[in-house]
Structure formats: C-alpha cells, structure tokens
C-alpha cells in the first residue's frame, strides 16, 4: 500500500508539473469566457444590412417607417443605461429620469404623445405635460435625424443596428446594386397589401440569411393588421383585446403536491445536469487519456522492468490509477472553483446580476456531490478498462486501435445528453442507467429528475461491481501486457490470456 502511494505520488507530482496540466486548468476560464463572448462577438461582427423599398401602395412604407422609429424610441427609454446622458439633447436630458420612471403602459403612451401628437392626460404630472407641450416636436425631429450610429449608442436592440433603409427607388439602379453586392435586398410592396399579396416581392442574392425578410414582413403584418381592424370599424379597445396573445403559465408540482411557479432558475436547474454531464465526460476523457499516454510512455522509457523488480504489477497499476485520479481531481476542483468564481463571485464583485441565479444550481449538493462521485466511479471504471488494454501497446497508435470499442461506448452519453435531459425519468433514461459504463453519465444527466433512491442504490451497486470486475480483468492483462513487446494481441488472444491462471501467465510473444 505504501509503495502504491509512492508511485501515485510520483505520478501526481510529475503530471502537475507538465505544461499540459496547466494548459488544461487554464482552458476552463477560456472556455467560459468564450461561451460568454462568442455570441456578442458574432453579433458585433455582423454587418448592417442595407435594404430599399419600392412602395406601390404609397402609404405602407411611411406607416412602417414610423412604427420602426417609434419602437426604437421605446428602446431608448427602456434600455437607457447610466453614462449615456451626454448623448441626449439638453431639452430631453432634464426630464429623462422622470420618463424612465413611468410604468410600461404610460411609456407606450409617451411614444404616442411624441410621435402621433396625442394629448397628454392627467396620468402625467403637470411638469411632464408642460414638457410634452413644449418639446414633443423637438424630440421627434431630433430622433428622426439621428444616424444609425448615434442610435446604436443607446441600445444594441435598435433595428437600425441591423437594417438600414436607403431611399433609392429606381428598379434598374437597385438591380445593379444587388448585382454589385452594394445592397443586401430590396422589397416591392404591391398596390394594396391590405387586400392581397399581389406584387409583393423580396429580391436578394442571399437566400440563406432570411432575417431581414422576416423582420420587415413582421413590420408590414403589424401595419396590415392595424389597417384591417380599422377598416372593420373595430375600436381601439376591442382591437387591443383581439391582439392580445394567449399564454400558459409554467407550473410544477412539488413532492407534497403543492404547486410551484416555474421561473428561470428552475429551467436552469433542469438543464444544469446537461452541462455537468458534458463536464464529467470531458474530465473522464482527459484523465483516462492521460493514464494511457503515461503507461505507454513508461513502457517506451523502458522503466517497467526496473519498477517491477521493486513492486508487483498490481501495485504499479494501482499507483498509476490513483496518481492520475489525484491529478484529475485537482483539475476538476480547479475548474469548479473557477466556474464558481466566474458565475457567483464575479457578478458579486462587479455588481451585476445574472439573468438566472446559477449559484443555486452550483450550491445544490445533488449536482456537485453526484458530479464528484460519478467522476471518481466513472474514472475508475474506464481507467481499469483502458489501462489493461493500453499496457499491451508500445505506442499511442497501437493503443488507439485497441481502445476504439471503449471510446465508442464513451460517445453514447454525449449523443443522448439532450434527449435524457428533456425526459430525465423516461424509459430510455431509466434503462440506460443500468448499463454500468453509461451509469455515471446517465445518472448525472438525470439529476434534475431526480431518480429514485432505489435507482441510485442499484445502479451504483452495479457500477461498483463492474469496477471490481474491470480491475480484476485489468490486473490479469496488465501483469503480462506491461512486459509485452511487438504487435499488441487481438481480442481472441486477450480472451485466451484471461482464462489462464495468473501464476502461469506469460507474455504472448
């Protein structure tokens, strides 16, 4: 036991001193930062798409333009952030805090007052009403004349960030511009869009990116629907009622049967296991890979025989597996610490609130504890299987061929990650839980279900029995394989080897 510890210790110290280990540790924050940054980067590198509109109806475009202008102004009020005051004109800056403080429905009204010339009623303070009387026109003019770049300063959500209309209406020129790649697309609105689609066309050379088309179509739809309601003599109130969308409220039942509101933390909780499974999978893969590389290196370093003159093959194998497990745990703990500080510490430090509270998920013992347990058990099972096979190989290439079947099994949990996460207590999930090589991943995947205590007990028992069996097999192979030179044996030869009693075991060649 003492010598196994010595081997494990040396293995651990040598591993944590390698560059690869530190690169592995630093990968985690890089991955986290990338997860956070990539969508933003993709968004920001996306260039603004230019479009033109030929409006044969004569009034649709005007109405749509006004609606876009209004909506963007709404974003100005609702998404205004501190530090942007300097970009506001003085006449707006003085009253802006008051506007922002208004409830949502009143803000909608403010936009009507400014853009449609509606009269402000008693819902607003005297001060605001006076302000509207004086400045509505100025605000409208200021907003109409603002460039897309100026608007972008206030919010990323402004439509002008993504789509900018140019005023060209000559068909030949537009076609030429499309051919030259100067224009992304142009729309033709038929003579009467309220009546029919007749004459409506979308012209572009890029038919894969349909975002602009979808967005502009929605704008027209809103206008057409409004017009239809007006033409049917439906009053505003009824129109609003007709327009109201239907929605379900998400509710889940607690164990005692009481209802509970579903919020975003619950959804995060439901999907957190998937992230943990992925994490588990990567950790186990990295560590078993390290074990194989290490074993083969030691073999090619010709140290095996010297080591075997001091310790038994089983002690050697055990020491290696324990040493790499310690390396793996260090790596995993470092990652967990980083993830915790990234999702919990960092927001606290810079004083922002994440849209969903991930600290709850991370602090939940059913996730973290089962993660650590399944990491250890899963690692031990795969370590035993792979170290046995790896011991027979003289280089990584040979090893890759021999361990391919094991790696195929390892792929299954990744492929089934999402379906199991969606239905954590379904038949598929339950069945796969009882297949020991899959147990750690599938049970981790089901953590939000959660599985019953009986399931936990039985599957863990099966897993532990498999680990013991795998170690027994690995030990038999290892003590012979580790001295083997030349081509690794086939599976039939390995099977033959496993049937031979340990004492009379010999290298196959």
């Amino acid at each position, binding site marked *: 036991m003492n*010598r196994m510890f*010595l*081997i494990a210790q*040396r293995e651990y110290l*040598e591993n944590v*001193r*390698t560059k690869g280990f530190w690169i592995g540790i630093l990968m985690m924050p890089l991955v986290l930062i990338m997860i956070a940054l990539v969508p933003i980067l993709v968004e920001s590198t996306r260039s603004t798409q230019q479009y033109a509109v030929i409006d044969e109806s004569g009034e649709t475009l005007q109405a749509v333009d006004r609606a876009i202008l209004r909506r963007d102004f709404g974003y100005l009020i609702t998404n205004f952030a501190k530090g942007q005051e300097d970009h506001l004109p003085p006449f707006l800056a003085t009253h802006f805090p008051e506007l922002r403080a208004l409830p949502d429905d009143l803000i909608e009204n403010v936009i009507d007052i400014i853009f449609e010339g509606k009269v402000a009623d008693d819902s607003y303070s005297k001060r605001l009403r006076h302000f509207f009387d004086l400045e509505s026109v100025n605000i409208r003019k200021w907003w109409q004349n603002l460039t897309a770049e100026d608007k972008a300063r206030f919010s990323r959500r402004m439509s002008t960030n993504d789509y900018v209309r140019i005023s060209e209406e000559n068909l030949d020129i537009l076609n030429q511009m499309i051919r030259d790649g100067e224009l992304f697309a142009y729309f033709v609105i038929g003579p009467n869009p309220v009546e029919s689609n007749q004459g409506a066309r979308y012209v572009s050379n890029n038919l894969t990116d349909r975002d602009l088309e979808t967005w502009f179509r929605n704008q027209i739809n809103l206008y057409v629907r409004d017009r239809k309601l007006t033409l049917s003599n439906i009053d505003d109130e009824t129109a609003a009622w007709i327009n109201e969308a239907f929605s379900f409220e998400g509710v889940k039942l607690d164990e005692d049967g009481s209802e509970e509101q579903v919020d975003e933390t619950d959804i995060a909780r439901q999907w957190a296991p998937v992230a943990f499974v992925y994490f588990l999978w990567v950790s186990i893969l990295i560590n078993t890979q390290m074990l194989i590389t290490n074993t083969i290196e030691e073999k090619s*370093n*010709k*140290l095996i*025989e*010297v*080591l*075997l*003159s*001091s*310790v*038994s093959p089983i002690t050697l194998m055990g020491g290696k597996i324990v040493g790499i497990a310690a390396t793996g745990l260090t790596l995993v703990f470092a990652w967990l610490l980083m993830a915790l500080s990234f999702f919990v510490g960092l927001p606290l430090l810079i004083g922002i609130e994440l849209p969903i509270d991930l600290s709850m998920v991370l602090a939940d013992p059913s996730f973290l504890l089962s993660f650590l347990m399944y990491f250890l058990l899963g690692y031990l099972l795969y370590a035993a299987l792979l170290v046995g096979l790896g011991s027979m190989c003289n280089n990584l290439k040979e090893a890759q061929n021999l361990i391919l079947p094991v790696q195929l099994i390892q792929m299954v949990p990744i492929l089934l990650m999402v379906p199991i996460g969606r239905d954590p207590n379904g038949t598929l999930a339950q069945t796969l839980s009882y297949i020991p090589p899959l147990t750690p991943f599938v049970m981790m995947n089901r953590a939000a279900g959660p599985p019953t205590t009986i399931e936990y007990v039985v599957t863990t028992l099966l897993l532990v029995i498999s680990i013991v069996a795998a170690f027994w097999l690995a030990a038999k192979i290892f003590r012979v394989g580790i*001295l083997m030179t030349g081509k690794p044996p086939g599976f039939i030869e390995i099977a033959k080897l496993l049937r031979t009693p340990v*004492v*009379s*075991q*010999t*290298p*196959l*060649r």
Partner: protein
Amino acid sequence: MNSIELHGVNKYFGDHHAVRDLSFKVPEGTVYGFLGPNGAGKTSTIRMIMSILYPDSGDLTVLGDSMPERVKDRLGYLPEEKGLYKKMKTRDLITYFGTLKGMSRREATKRARLLLDQFGLLDCEDLHCEGLSKGMGQKVQIIATLIHDPDLVILDEPFSGLDPINVELVREIILDLRSKGKTVVFSTHIMEQAEQICDSILLVNEGRKILDGSVTDLKREFEPTLLLEYDGDPDSLHQPGVVRVNNMGRSAELSLASGTDPQRTLKSLMDAVTLHSFTVKEPSLHEIFVRSVGGSTS
C-alpha cells in the same frame, strides 16, 4: 549458503519451452555468470529470480526464501532494457527507487548523494535526467540499482552497448561488490568478459543447462588446447588428433581428441606450417562452450 537455488525449473511462453528443467546454485559472495547465446533463456531465468515472471514448474529459492517476492527489497536489478524518467532530477530519481525498495526518504537521499559523489556525478544531482549524457545515464542507472545496498545484485547484459571506459567501470563495480561480500549475477553472451571476472558460471543453450560450476574446475575438466602462432595454409592445421580449429588468421586454437599427445601433434604441425609459438593451455570458456554445445546437440 547459496544466494540462489533452482531445482527443475520450467517456463513456457505459449508453445515455446523457454527454460527447460533448469537446476543450479549460486554460492553467496561470488560473481556468477549466466552464459549463452541470445535467446538461450537467460533473461527469462533472471526475471523468474526477480519474481517478474513465475516458473510453470520447479522450485526457486532466493536468499533462502522460496517465495522470492518476499526478498525483493534485498535484490538489485539492472535489466538489459533500461531507462530513466526524463523529467526527474537525478537525485530525486535515485531516491525514488530507494524508497520503492523500502528505504526512508531521508536515508535514500543521503545515500543517493553519497553514491553520486563516488561516481563523480555530484555536480549533476539537480540535473534532469534528459540532460545527462549516455555514459552518465548508465552510471545513474547503476546507482539506482545499488541505492538500497542489495545483498544480491543481478545485471542483465550489463556490458552491452558500453564503451571501453564504461566496460572497465562496470567491471570494477562488480569486483568491488564482491569484495564487500555481495553476490553478483550477470548475464552475457560474450565469453571473454565472463572468463575474466566470474568465479562460477552457468552455460545455457536453448533453455537447457549445458554445464555449471567454478571456472577453475570447469577448465580442469576439459582437455587442454593448443595455442599457436603460425604462417602457412590454415587447412594444414587439421592434423590427426585435431578435432576442431578456431582459426584467427595468424594464430589459432586447436582442440585435441581425448588421449591425443600434444607432442605428436606438434611434430606433425612443424612439417605442415611455419610455427612461431606453441603453448599447451587450459581451454577458453568459448572453447568449452563450443565443445559442450557440440556434444549436447550431436
């Protein structure tokens, strides 16, 4: 007292009968040579003594214990294929092997430095093994073998691939160990080396023992050979009574059929070639090997 005793040991590798009914004794405090051509079963025998392999049948006693695993800590083993942990410091590596043999870390470090000093490598104690020259690496491997002051040292082909300076060094180490009362077993396929330093030898071929015993006794048992320097036709050396000619160009070793009188052979040789010198001598181990293998296979 014998350091190693084997009785009727057999070892199979699949269908290959690698060691056949092998019995021999290595007396304590001697230098013992395992001799034989490549593939004779020397390494397999050594691995069984080191309990890296197990015999299929037969008895094996090492340092008085019939379970050789139990005395592993008193054995020092330098395999033919040997290496170092490249990323470890020389001193740490030697210390590590010491602790694997049951030494405390302090004790092992102390002795590692002592041995490094003796081998003139103290300057390299903080060097990573990958930075050592080939010769230095070999010295470090020997130090790692001797770190725990073993009672029985087993060296598998210790001279192969060494330059003359290092051959001399290894020979000195072996003789030094003997002078301290340790038993040294080494294998080689080069007879001259064994002849120079071994007290006793074991000759094996195709897994079978050809002969064993003290070098002096063995030489006495065999008919003497004739060493001569000559000019002339080598074919003329085959005179009546000469059973084998080991021709080396201008000199030759002639073995005689038993009962042949060397004086009569000398006479007939003088008529056939020009002789410069003529010596009646004990046979070399090489000669003994060739005679024995010839005898055992025919």
